[in-house]
């Protein structure tokens, strides 16, 4: 087991290195990084000074060595806007994003399992068709549009909820969570439904029925556990996909998370922050994938990783 985790960590490290190298060389191959890093209206004196200070006048290979050395020591450079270490800014923003993402994913997993199982119980019934079509709708909506429509309805017209902002008050969280949940929910309901239809027709379900077990217990205890593997796989993919949604939701609702930090950094051309947030996000994603693989083993003893 430990060997397996080691192997996966190594694979992830290779992926990360490819990413770091690609970002570094793309930024240098496509033009003068001084132009990329400095504000557009910077004058020549500033550019020259910057190039000398950042070592951009030295050979590319040497620059790369210095860069890798710094990254390995957790030094991504200072934010060009705030003059603070980029990594600090990223690590400050992370808890907000994680809280949002995990709450949303927990909601999605529970609700999609319930709704998808109900639909799978009688395939082709009115309930099933309603669930199928509404999950398709939920998976097709543009989240940014739902977000601003919801602001218009609940915050501007009805004035039930704040338009945006961040705080411990639950009212700040309702709209962002509601919008964030939509697309993964729509996707996952379809997977749960398909997986449950297959499971409910298997022999052990029939045995459970013959034993006189209650239908609720059969569906939610016996069948759902066995239908869980494909659900977990898709849920992991959706969590990664949720980062797309997070960027948009955090921007619209003004949440001080990693998505907003990243967009602001891109807009302000704050390259060290962009780089640091990308790398930290990538590490989080690779960790998630390893955890999902371990969850497989916990759920299905037949799977053994070597």
């Amino acid at each position, binding site marked *: 087991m430990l060997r397996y985790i080691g192997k996966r960590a190594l*694979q992830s490290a*290779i*992926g990360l290195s*490819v*990413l770091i190298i690609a*970002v570094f060389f*793309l*930024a240098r191959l*496509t033009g003068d990084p001084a132009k*990329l890093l400095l504000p557009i209206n910077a004058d020549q004196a500033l550019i020259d000074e910057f190039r000398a200070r950042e070592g951009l006048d030295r050979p590319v290979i040497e620059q790369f060595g210095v860069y890798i050395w710094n990254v390995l020591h957790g030094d991504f450079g200072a934010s060009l806007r705030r003059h603070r270490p980029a990594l600090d800014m990223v690590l400050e923003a992370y808890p907000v994003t994680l809280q949002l993402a995990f709450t949303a994913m927990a909601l999605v997993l529970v609700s999609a399992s319930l709704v998808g199982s109900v639909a799978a119980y009688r395939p*082709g019934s009115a309930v099933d068709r309603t669930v199928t*079509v509404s999950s*398709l*709708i939920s*998976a*097709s*909506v*543009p*989240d*940014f*549009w739902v977000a*601003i*429509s919801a*602001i*218009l309805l609940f915050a*501007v017209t009805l004035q039930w909820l704040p338009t945006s902002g961040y705080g411990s008050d639950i009212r700040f969280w309702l709209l962002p969570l509601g919008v964030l949940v939509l697309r993964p929910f729509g996707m996952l309901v379809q997977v749960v439904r398909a997986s449950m239809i297959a499971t409910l027709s298997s022999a052990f379900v029939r045995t459970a029925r013959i034993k006189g077990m209650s239908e609720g217990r059969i569906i939610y205890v016996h069948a759902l556990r066995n239908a869980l593997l494909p659900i977990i796989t898709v849920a992991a993919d959706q969590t*990664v*996909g949720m*980062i*797309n949604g997070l*960027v*948009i939701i955090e*921007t619209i609702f003004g949440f001080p998370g990693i998505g907003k930090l*990243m*967009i602001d950094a*891109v*807009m302000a*051309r704050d390259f060290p922050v*962009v780089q640091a947030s*990308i790398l930290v*996000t*990538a590490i989080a*994603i*690779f960790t998630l*994938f390893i955890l999902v693989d371990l969850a497989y083993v916990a759920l299905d003893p037949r799977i053994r990783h070597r």
Partner: protein
Amino acid sequence: MSHLIPVSDTAEVQPAETVAAAELQESVRVRRHLPWWRLLLRDKFAMASVIWFVILLAFVFLGPLFLSEKATAVNLAARNAPPGFSHGFLNILGADPLGRPLLPRLMVGARNTLAIAFSSVICALVLGSFLGMIAGYVGGIIGNLIMRLADVISSFPSLLLALIVLYILEPHVMNLVLVLAITRTSIYLRVTRAEVLEIRERAFVDASRALGGGAPHILRRHIAPLVAPTLGTIVTVDFAAVMLAESALSFLGIGIQPPEITWGLMVAQGRNYLTQAWWLAFVPGAAIMLTTLSANLISSWLRIINDPAQRWRLEISRKEAKP
């Protein structure tokens, strides 16, 4: 995978033993030969989706012909005009803060939005299926390298990837298409590779190889036609995903830049006038949703008619099913 199973052949080869058997055979034959458009009529949602796409295509090809200057014509008298007939037919969906009518803007935006999504999907399809065929048929080190690359790309959120590339390169239409295509490539690559791995072991591929067929010939003539229907289903789902991605990027301000018009950009611009003129953001967003939903519905219909285990659901009409 196979579209139509020619049941009628077996009926001719084996003479019918009893009248009943012949009738059964006959009824099966009749059902299996329903053309695709009749199966489309049976599925109301898919039918409505196709109609919406036909309307959109009319927008794309006819809209710019008559309306491109109307879409940018400033008319301060109709500033933020609400939907309705008060300012003439062109302003039926309202007008923006410069009095530019929303309907023609929507039509011109449809062309950009759909063209970007379409070309991205086609690029991803061509690139992905090509690499997937190499990875599946040739394999070896090259195949492994391709797969690892696909792993790296697909394990990273597409929006972030697009963000980096559009940050480093310029937010130009070509770059946008390129980025969207690259982020979607790995799906086609994986599916193609998996199918090729299975198909290349079949007898007819061996036969073709024994007859001296080279790899390009086998891939083109024997493997590609069998992979195509699966890829077709993915293309329609992907079309919706790419459209949403492009709209999100344009909405965030790193996709298409004004004065070009796309639906995502229209939502972004309308967002500033949310309280005064809600229709500016609502209408283009609704257009995006209808289009992605239609693509998803068509895809689920395609999946049903390509799946012999499910096709009957559409072939048997309600009346037949309940005698």
